[in-house]
């Protein structure tokens, strides 16, 4: 896919998102104020509409220039393969958030670190465990005990 294809894809996605926000999200999520001159929905509507129009224009411009680049819409293809690592990464983040309520911060963060270290390519199980434990516990100690920013304890009490 050439650059122009990327522009078309991103442009159209943003236009669609803006339309969704404008027509669906705003009416449902913005609590209106009866007889207000400039109500709470004014600014979001203005912003989203402008952004939507701009991205629509951008997409159109890019569509028109397809010919100049000797490309066509048929060349647009998606491969999720390139993004699998990123999905796993974010999933690890979510996993941390789900588990931390139960296991408590220090344990979960050490587990997360071990997983991440392997995921990012650091080799050596002993090395990774040591790094994870030292860093995770020090962070927890620094924030929880010294700075007194408490992390809610899990079922183990820490």
């Amino acid at each position: 896919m050439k650059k122009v294809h990327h522009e078309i894809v991103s442009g159209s996605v943003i236009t669609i998102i803006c339309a969704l926000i404008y027509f669906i999200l705003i009416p449902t999520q913005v609590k209106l104020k009866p007889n207000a001159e400039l109500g709470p929905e004014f600014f979001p509507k203005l912003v989203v509409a402008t952004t939507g129009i701009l991205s629509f224009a951008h997409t159109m411009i890019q569509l028109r220039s397809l010919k100049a680049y000797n490309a066509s819409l048929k060349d647009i293809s998606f491969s999720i393969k390139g993004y699998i690592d990123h999905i796993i990464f974010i999933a690890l983040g979510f996993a941390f958030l789900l588990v931390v309520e139960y296991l408590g911060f220090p344990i979960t963060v050490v587990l997360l670190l071990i997983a991440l270290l392997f995921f990012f390519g650091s080799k050596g199980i002993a090395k990774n465990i040591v790094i994870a434990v030292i860093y995770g516990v020090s962070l927890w100690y620094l924030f929880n005990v010294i700075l007194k920013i408490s992390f809610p304890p899990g079922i183990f009490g820490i």
Partner: protein
Amino acid sequence: MEFMQVLSSFADVSVWVSLILGVIVGIIGGALPGISPSMTIALMLPVTLYLPGVDAIASLMGAYQGAMYGGSISAILINTPGTASAAATAIDGYELAKKGKAKKALLMSLYSSVAGGVIGIIILLFSAQFLAKIALKFGPPEYFGLMMLSMALIAGISGKSLMKGLISAGLGLFFATIGLDPIYGSTRFTFGNINLFDGVNTLSVFIGIFALSEIMMQLSLGRTELNKKPETLLMDKDTLTIKEFFAEKMNILYASIIGAFIGILPGIGGSTASFVAYAFEQKRSKHPEEFGKGSLAGIAAPEAANNAVCGGALVPMLTLGVPGDVVTAILVGALIAHGIKPGPLLFVENIASVYSIYIALFFSLIVLSAVGHLGINASATIVKLRKSILLPLVFVICIVGTYSSGGSYFDVYAMLFFGVVGFLLRKYGYPLSPLIIAFVVGGMLESNLRRSLLLDDSGAMIFFTRPLSAFLLVASVVFMAFMVHSNQKEKKAAEAKKEEVADEDDLA
């Protein structure tokens, strides 16, 4: 003379110890993502209550300046702004770090911070009363004009595509509307979740968009690449030359003035000031295309501005008793707890405390430059870690920092969301800075617009019947036109250079 008396009280060792400890705590607090300058000061507050007045003031001023500088350390080294005011520094700072010039970037940040702080104090010293009068002239319409001017700068930093920059800014503005409506209190896009009532946590956005997106971009390099030992050769000849620093002298001067002035206005502080200074300098610079690729000017401007904010924010606090930003608001509490009541009578009744504050600020900058040096040598070693280890550590500190800023894991969810948003935007070539500026400014833009309409019955005309706001609005339009025009000129020049029309880089 009273001034001499106060000065002599600074000869006490305990005061210098307080100064040094304050600066150190400030730098560390600033460097830790999620611990903002106001939080650092708030955490120190209970301790300072047990200290005598001068010591307490010394430590707090030291922490203030230290924190404003400290944010740049993590911004430069790991693309994670330690404070919101260092987000602009991350843009060029991290690029320099990637090229192995981390030490140079850190030194530039340190010296610019000190220079900015000094200029901020000078402005405070000589024109406090005068500036306070000007600050009072800024009502909601004028704040709106100023925010419009800041938004106009976006046109300048959009890089190659103004259209995409505006779209990015539009997204930023949209995210800024999440939360309670500032005038009516209606919920907007909160999905019934009270954690969103005050809007998205600023740090979730900053850390997500900068740090997380960067980590994800790095992920694309592949495990073998990430596990390679980084080349340490580049670190050797890496310090800042005097020539390089003085090349930025006008930049720093302008940035400090911008920072001090924005600091003077209550409610606006370091994050706005640093971005405005960054965008302003990019437009003023003879090499604007270098911004975003590792330009030293791109570090000097925001760092000078955010330290100048310290001096500026003290102007209304000392002269009017009205704090100029979040940190000074806490300082007011600290001063009151020591029996010093900031207000118009402070200069008359308790000039000694005013002198202590001035002197403490000045000395704290001296301490900062000394302590900062030590910190740089220590922190630059972070760059020596291989990425397969560094990136997980950075991710975890992002989580911890984001959690700490609001005491809630919800903010961490938000950070992950914005990480994905930032990553996608980068992948598809949308500039991130406009989104950030729009997000920071958007809230104040809207609230002051609607607030202005409440002030009297003239409706929209209020912006033009008041000379100052009319001037600011006209200036923003002119500015924007100028930016667009010079953007077009640059584009044509760039296109004329290039023989090929098509950009064949395959982004998949």
